[in-house]
């Protein structure tokens, strides 16, 4: 009661611009069996103005195990009168995949074509799952600028099918009804939140309930996530079919020197890279089961499971055991919750225990060096699959000692401020990942990509080339030659040169002042040695003192010295991996501003009179 009063009395206490308001929302999960779940959802949302139009759109997905059996979208005008009813046929079903993918997923979108604001949309939908190994989380306020008056989750299930639950910011009450457990969660009066924090930080703060089945059945395959070990065993059960290799492949393996394990791994990895490509055909349980190895060799393609299984089988034939690793892949993916065994994965790769360490193979890449996994799967919780003992471990971390970008540049400066720059850049560690763009992107993308690297006001890239000396080494070099007019600014008889004519330190930090976060996802070492050939008869009054910074966030050093008629600028920036919000953000900002002050300094060249 009090809460409602508050809302009425203080309408202007806008916690954020409210573009839509969920008036009521109830989601009921009825788990009848492992192959029968009904999800009934009904909600009513008010769209305040045109700016909130997108909140009125209904959208949900279907696939082989998930069907929308019923959906209606009713529209009510400001007086409460129902003006329209939209059904499935009024919507659009879209299944659009990239050229290398086929799956049976589709999205149904029903968008009301009504714009007499404010109006209300009421959605009633029923979804049926005939097999599931994960359940969508319940998040009553999933988006910015959306207020929620009331939202309820009801979970009905027999005791044996009680899912694993994680409650964040909300507590449920459980009763027993008709022999089934019934748990109810409710939230009320959630204000709209402005888009002034990072989505990830917003998401973490949201009240929510995560649900994951402890045992499940997909098609005819029974599995369990009671523990990681159980889930790992299920995955293995789908991917342990006996294999048959092509005679040529077997011959190749037999011809190798059994003693040199590392060499065998490398040669087989390259063999696979040269004869397969990534194609993802995921229909039905194909989402969890690989295309058999014979088909991979027959068609010359496969998805991540098929290619990884193929590699695993070849190694097995060579007498080398290896392990599947399940991961949530992507350069910037959210981490897997280690204490919530459930299917949180979207990719698989291979680990090969060696005498002293482990080698890893990314089997979907035709160009990756052996044992290089890069930013796709680094530094996160992954599931190491081993019969009876699958468990979460931390994947390989590429740290600031390995991720090195080192540049040697020569700048020839003219008296009018124009310059020619020659840069030689060496990329190691996760900086090596960039080669994927150069090797596979179309020419116009590469041109634009290179142009975006330079912030000079007016420049022309005269020459660009890149080179990887050894297919197996995760390091490559780039060379640029560019003309930049006005690199130094002429003022009277002076020339003003940027103190650090190199990639600004800011480019290695991801952050936002309004959202108050700063992130160095991967530690990095950035070294620059810049030699500036000054124009004849120009000199510098005084060079700045050497700068050094040593902080918990990283280290920095900058020196500018003469070497005959050349100015030599050396910069070394080391950034430690970190994610900084709230107080830590304020502390990081101090470090950031120090670097900003240093790097924004200019050098003034004077003409000798």
């Amino acid at each position, binding site marked *: 009661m009090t809460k409602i009063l508050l809302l009425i009395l203080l309408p202007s206490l806008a916690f954020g611009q409210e573009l839509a308001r969920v008036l009521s929302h109830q989601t009921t999960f009825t788990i009848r069996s492992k192959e029968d779940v009904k999800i009934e959802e009904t909600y009513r949302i008010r769209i305040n103005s045109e*700016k909130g139009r997108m909140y009125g759109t209904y959208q949900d997905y279907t696939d082989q195990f998930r069907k929308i059996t019923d959906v209606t979208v009713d529209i009510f005008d400001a007086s409460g009168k129902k003006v329209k009813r939209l059904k499935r046929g009024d919507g659009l079903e879209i299944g*659009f995949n990239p050229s290398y993918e086929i799956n049976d997923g589709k999205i149904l979108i029903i968008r009301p074509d009504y*714009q007499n604001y404010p109006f209300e949309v009421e959605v009633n939908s029923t979804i049926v799952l005939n097999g599931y190994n994960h359940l969508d989380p319940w998040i009553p306020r999933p988006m910015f600028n959306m207020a929620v008056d009331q939202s309820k989750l009801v979970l009905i299930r027999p005791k044996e099918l009680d899912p694993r639950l994680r409650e964040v910011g909300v507590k449920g009450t459980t009763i027993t009804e008709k022999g089934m457990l019934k748990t109810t969660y409710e939230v009320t009066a959630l204000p709209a939140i*402005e888009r002034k924090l990072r989505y990830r930080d917003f998401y973490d703060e949201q009240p929510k309930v995560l649900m994951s089945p402890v045992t499940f059945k997909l098609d005819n395959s029974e599995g369990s996530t009671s523990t990681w070990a159980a889930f790992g065993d299920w995955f293995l059960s789908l991917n342990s079919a006996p294999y048959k290799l092509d005679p040529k492949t077997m011959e190749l393996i037999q011809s190798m020197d059994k003693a040199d394990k590392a060499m065998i791994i490398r040669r087989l990895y390259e063999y696979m890279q040269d004869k397969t490509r990534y194609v993802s055909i995921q229909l039905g349980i194909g989402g969890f089961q690989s295309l058999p190895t014979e088909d991979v060799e027959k068609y010359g393609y496969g998805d991540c499971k098929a290619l990884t299984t193929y590699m695993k089988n070849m190694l097995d034939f060579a007498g080398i055991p290896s392990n599947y690793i399940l991961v949530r892949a992507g350069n910037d993916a959210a981490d897997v919750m280690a204490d919530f065994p459930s299917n949180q994965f979207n990719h698989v790769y291979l680990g090969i225990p060696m005498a002293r360490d482990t080698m890893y193979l990314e089997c979907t890449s035709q160009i990756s060096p052996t044992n290089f996994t890069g930013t796709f799967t680094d530094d996160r919780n992954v599931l190491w699959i081993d019969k009876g003992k699958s468990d979460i471990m931390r994947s390989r971390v590429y740290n600031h000692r390995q991720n090195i970008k080192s540049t040697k540049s020569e700048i020839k400066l003219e008296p009018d*401020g124009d310059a020619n720059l020659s840069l030689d850049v060496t990329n190691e560690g996760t900086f090596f990942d960039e080669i994927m763009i150069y090797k596979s992107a179309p020419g116009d993308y590469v041109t634009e990509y290179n142009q975006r690297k330079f912030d000079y006001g007016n420049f022309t890239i005269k020459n660009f080339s890149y080179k990887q000396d050894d297919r197996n080494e995760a390091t490559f070099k780039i060379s640029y030659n560019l003309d930049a007019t006005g690199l130094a600014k002429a003022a*009277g008889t002076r020339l003003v040169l940027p103190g650090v004519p190199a990639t600004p330190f800011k480019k290695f930090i991801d952050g936002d002042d309004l959202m108050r976060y700063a992130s160095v996802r991967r530690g990095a070492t950035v070294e620059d040695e810049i030699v500036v050939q000054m124009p004849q008869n120009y000199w510098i009054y005084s060079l700045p003192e050497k700068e050094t910074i040593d902080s918990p966030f990283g280290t920095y050093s900058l020196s500018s010295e003469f070497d005959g008629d050349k100015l030599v600028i050396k910069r070394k920036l080391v950034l430690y991996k970190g994610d900084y919000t709230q107080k830590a953000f304020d502390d990081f900002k101090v470090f950031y501003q120090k670097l900003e002050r240093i790097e924004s300094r200019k050098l003034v060249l004077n003409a000798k009179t």
Partner: protein
Amino acid sequence: MMKLLAGIFCAGLLLPCAVLAQKRVSFEKVTLEELQMSSYANDSSAGAVILMDLGYLNGNELKFYRKMRIKILTKAGLDWGNRSFNTPTKGDFRVVTHNLVDGKIVSEKADSKSIHEEEVIEGIEIYKVFAPNVKVGSVVDITYSHFGPPLEWRFQERIPIAYSELTLEDTDFLKFNKTHFGLQPIETVSRNQWRSKNMPAFITEPFISTYANYITKFEFQLESIGTPGRNYYEFSTTWRRVVDILLDHPRFGGVIKGSAFLNDFAKETKVKSISVKEKIQAAYTYVQSNMKWNGRNTILATAGLRNNFLVDHSGSSAEINLVLVCLLNKMDITAYPVVLSTRENGFLVPFSPTIDKLDYVVCMVQHEDLTMFVDATMPDVGAPGMVPVRCLNGNGLMIKKDNEQWFGLNKGYNDVKKQFISITMEKGGVARGKLTQDYAGYGYINWTEELKASNNDADIIKNKLQKENQDIKIEKYEIAKRDANTSTGKEVLELDMSGQLIDAGGDLIFTPFAMHDYLSNPLKSETRKYPVDLTYPRDLQTTIVIQLPKEYAVKTLPEGTKLSTPDGGATFTYLASASGSTVQFRVVLKITKHIWTESEYADLRMFFGEVSKKISAPIELAKT
């Protein structure tokens, strides 16, 4: 139109007696040379090359056959073993991969598991084929056929095409015409056959409305089906015919003639003693407040127009603007619809009349000596005159009986922006600026779009502007004025410009410009293949007044200058002057034409380069 054709074919409505195809395009067996090829001589960077692409329309069967041979040269080209095809009717595919194994050619045919039909959106299907065993060096042959002519024929693709040939036999039954896009040469072998050799890969460039305008290809439009006198459907053979079809259509001409729901307002407003312009404004506001654009670009209204206007208040661009035409006419103001193709839909080619390519309608008033466009789909634009940016694509066709008149879609509106910066410099290396930015014309429209993208929230906008301008510190940001009725806006910022102030051993060096749109050259590539489209003319003025710190006077000022491209289509004047303790700058950049040819590119690029350099030039102050 092609879907209509497909429907007709499927309903078995038309087929003349299906004679077995007598001619087949020759597609020889793959050769050892083709398999041994390790790079494409004309383009060493190509990841794959189409060795031949042959298309053949059998005039009797009305069946189209295509054979394509793709050579994979590097790992980057492996994806060319996966192809998607959009056929107008059901397609019949065959895919074979050839590889060299121990010096011998081994060919494998794709089985049904590798050929998929995918429903992209309801009713629209594409075929996806995955050629088996594609490796570096493989040659992939794809052949398919379908009824009806193809929707388009690309002589150019994202990879080079060594040989492309299209043959379209005459058919009595089906008449269609084609529109030729792109700049690469195509050889006309005969009336029915065209080919090209060594076509370079298509490369996109910035500042073009859509790449589809420039890729070298034919687009096909149906002119008629059947023979005159018997089941004859005619589509669009001339623009006059297009005009007639639209005027006769219940959901185009019908809207203009009917729409009784507008009568009350028309009657009431028509008799008011206000000027014609004021009446147009009233009609514009009335339509805008009763129907908001739902994001759809169409040429025809829907059957639910009356309900859309009165109840749902939501409609497509055609519905909104046809209603406007109708309303104005009811008020005795002469107005006509003007149809066009939007920027993303590609150019309309005047000598290829087609209804298919039209996807938008605006209203045009032609009353006594008043001529203006009216488009009520933009909520932030309260006064008529401008068409939305998406419509700025060449000329539009007026739909007026017995007429064929084309009109340029921009009646003199520019991207107008005025900056005024007042800077005070204080002791201790501090420089503060107050920046006012005024927007008008398309400058105003762009500004409102950017504000919308930032939720119209001053904090979000300030943050975004700060990220884009890191040499200065934005301390305050405010939207001072936003006037939909005059389509003008103003924002005020308080800046700390100390970062642009350097102490040079007693003298001060200061760069006075901030947040100027041409601090960097927008044209980054050295060469250019296609014309540059800047969308609309530009008018950018900057005035700066600097209050010098006590004890300082000007030592050097950058010289005044006037820059211009050879034809005067872009001009820049820069004036700097000092008097007493103030320094003033007055800079005007005008771009009067928005389309620049490839041969004018170098001059335009150099122009912007010089502007960028000039704007970044600092001033020197010395202690007095």
